[in-house]
């Protein structure tokens, strides 16, 4: 028996999914769709900016100074990650009991943790000395491998995130009726 079958464990998430916040998100027309839109804006800004740094680390766009470019892109990707975390929690709450027992959710959190560890390893192994190699087209092998892992991990996270969308609790039809708002 796994921990996600444990009655006490599932009860916690069921309570969260029945709470005021979850109810508000479920019953406010378009709240969930708007939150998802905001989450997707976060995905675009985060992955787009991370990917550009990865390109530089792989030796493309070598006219860019890796240090200055990295600092600039971090000023974009860090706020985007905060946006992703906040909107992500709000998307989790109404379906908390389903997600907390879903293998796809655990896989996404695992991939997310791998992305975080990869960023940490890159920071320790290469980024701290970026002023030494930032002008060179050929970056340290640690930076290049971190860039490859980063692209693969974040694509995995996006794919698992999209697949999670198929596990969420549908809002009551009467309260989310796009036919009335977008009718011909």
């Amino acid at each position, binding site marked *: 028996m796994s921990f996600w079958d444990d009655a006490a464990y599932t009860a916690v998430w069921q309570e969260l999914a029945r709470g005021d916040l979850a109810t508000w998100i479920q019953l406010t027309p378009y709240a969930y769709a*708007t939150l998802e839109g905001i989450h997707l804006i976060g995905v*675009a800004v985060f992955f787009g900016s991370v990917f550009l740094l990865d390109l530089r680390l792989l030796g493309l*766009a070598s006219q*860019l100074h890796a240090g200055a470019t990295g600092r600039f892109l971090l000023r974009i990707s860090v706020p985007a990650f905060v946006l992703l975390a906040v909107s992500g929690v709000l998307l989790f709450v109404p379906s908390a009991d389903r997600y907390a027992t879903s293998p796809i959710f655990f896989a996404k959190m695992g991939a997310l943790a791998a992305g975080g560890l990869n960023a940490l390893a890159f920071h320790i192994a290469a980024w701290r000395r970026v002023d030494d190699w930032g002008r060179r087209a050929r970056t340290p092998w640690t930076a290049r491998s971190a860039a490859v892992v980063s692209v693969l991990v974040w694509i995995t996270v*996006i794919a698992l995130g*999209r697949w999670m969308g198929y596990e969420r609790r549908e809002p009551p039809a009467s309260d989310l009726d796009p036919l009335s708002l*977008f009718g011909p």
Partner: protein
Amino acid sequence: MLEAIQNSALSQLLVSERWVITANSKQILETVHFVAFALQIGAVMVISLRLLGVGRSVSIAALGRPVFWTAWLGFAVVLVTGALQFAPIATEVFYRPSFRGKIAVLTVALAILVWLHVALRRKASAWDGGETVPRSLQILAGLSLALWPTVIVVARLMYAFVQMADL
């Protein structure tokens, strides 16, 4: 025309049960669409912010190259995966205001993107050399910063309709 698209062999293949992968073909198309638009829109947001004065130590000319490569390649994939999702539901979706709204905002945002690309090709080295980025171009960068997220939100609301109508 729309009926021809929806009844085409391709549309039938995309929704048919016979093809093993089709059970998930919607999911796979959506995922590729997501990854591609994230790369495209993210890259556009980065260059827009740079034109608005964030990260002044980064060369606009050198940043523009990877940004526009990523943006246009990403957009090509977005277009293909978008068309493949559109085809099987062409008649139902084409007349929806949310679909037309998405295409309208997208068209304006794309026109601005082409404009930014052309302007960068002609003037980026001058801006890197100390010339100020013209106010008119900064307004376009600001518009691009607002319009691409709008495309995402309108697209999500359109998706809510598609789900509700169970297409």
